[in-house]
């Protein structure tokens, strides 16, 4: 990350925009789909939004907003509070493509997001190793649907972004 690029990274509206998109994804993720008699909930939709968090969003504000989004996700999914916050923060800090969106092709972004999901599954399986009862039967369908929705999400994110910030690169 060069210094000039980093000096841009103080944009609070961008952080708020990322937060709002994440909230929308959390709500969309709550809608249940029934495919072939299997109940599918898209738990990774908000993660997609954190993965593609706006490039020049103010980092400290972003971190706080991501933490709050994680709490929202846990509350609305009736999960133990804090789990999603940890997951989102880890994704934001270590796995998110930073200021080099333009240099990464769409396929690379898509593949990288597949990697993020794989790491998340790994983390969940870690809980299983420690004796937690974890249901993984729905993972294949959930992963497939989430990856299929990735281009749709990217299109949605960019369209909304162009409406609110027509001159900025998100």
């Amino acid at each position, binding site marked *: 990350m060069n210094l000039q690029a980093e000096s841009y990274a103080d944009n609070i509206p961008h952080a708020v925009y990322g937060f709002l998109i994440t909230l929308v994804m959390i709500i969309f993720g709550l809608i249940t789909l029934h495919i072939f008699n299997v109940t599918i*909930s898209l738990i990774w939709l908000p993660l997609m939004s954190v993965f593609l968090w706006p490039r020049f969003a103010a980092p400290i504000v972003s*971190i706080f907003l991501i933490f709050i989004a994680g709490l929202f996700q846990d509350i609305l*999914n*009736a*999960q133990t509070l*804090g789990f999603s916050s940890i997951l989102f923060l880890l994704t934001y800090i270590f796995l998110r493509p930073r200021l080099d969106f333009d240099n990464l092709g769409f396929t690379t972004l898509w593949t990288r997001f597949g990697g993020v999901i794989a790491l998340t599954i790994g983390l969940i399986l870690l809980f299983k190793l420690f004796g937690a009862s*974890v*249901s993984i039967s*729905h993972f294949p369908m959930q992963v497939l649907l989430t990856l299929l929705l990735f281009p749709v999400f990217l299109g949605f994110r960019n369209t909304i972004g162009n409406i609110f910030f027509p001159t900025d690169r998100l």
Partner: protein
Amino acid sequence: MASSSIERIRQRRLAVRFSVLALMVLCFVVFLASRGNETLDSTSSGVLEDGVTPILAYLSMPVRGAENILSEIQARNDVHEENERLHKELDRLKDAEMRANALALKITKFETLLNVDTGAGIPEKKIAARAVSERDGPFVRSALINAGRNKGIAKGFAVMTSEGLYGHVVRVGKNSSRALKLTDLNSRVAVMSLRSEGRAILTGDNTDFPSLSYVSNTDDWNVGDNVVTSGDDGVLPRGLPVGKVRQEKSGALKVDLNVDGTRVDWVLIIPFDKIESLSELLDITEQAANAEDASDIATDVEATDTTLGVAQTETTTPDVDPAGVQP
């Protein structure tokens, strides 16, 4: 100029690192504190769920609509066979209803005679609501329902579908409530075999087939037995259909739930006055014992009266020929 800019960036990086560290610590604290802490969980969630439920109700409408259209298209293909099957089912159910009515009458008579209430009745009143969001996540299996205290729902009420028991209410907001599904890891329901009345606890384990644990006697449980709620937990009414017994290769007893993974849209919530505490249970037992004592005393008095030759009060007309009585 350049050095001050670098310094500013360095300070910001430090602030970011500190924030990340602080928030990660906070995450772990919240994670550990909220495990099994109902108060922490329910204070924030009620308000948030109340706000999201109406949005979800609208957003899920097109999805449910599309699913309904698809299932109707599928159903149209075998409508003739379905009709025949339903006719047969109707005939069978008419007969079953007749028998059930006769049995209910008989039970009521027995209860009146014995002066007991078995508490076996499933409440007539049901609250209809929509399951706007089902969660079958890696850790939790629950559903968000678009009715709460405004419809008279309270914690512990049974949630049913037309097929059978779906779960029970664990959290209630003003206009939303959270139902814990039978398959969830934290779900425990007292059940019995309808055939043998053998008791067990239906234990959710995040799989589609919850286990039967604390089985009173394994001989009481056969594969294919109908499983219903026993009402022993004092939380759910007795007799709600749950599923059928199945056995794993390992020999473990599981239950094939009547409500499987298929689409659940409308649910029925059954209000039930649960027994809140052991002291309440003891009060009820005490009252029953007092009533029994009172009846024993009455019997003793009657017996004493008979011994002393005191005329017993007759409720029936004395067997006297009016014609024989002359002034």
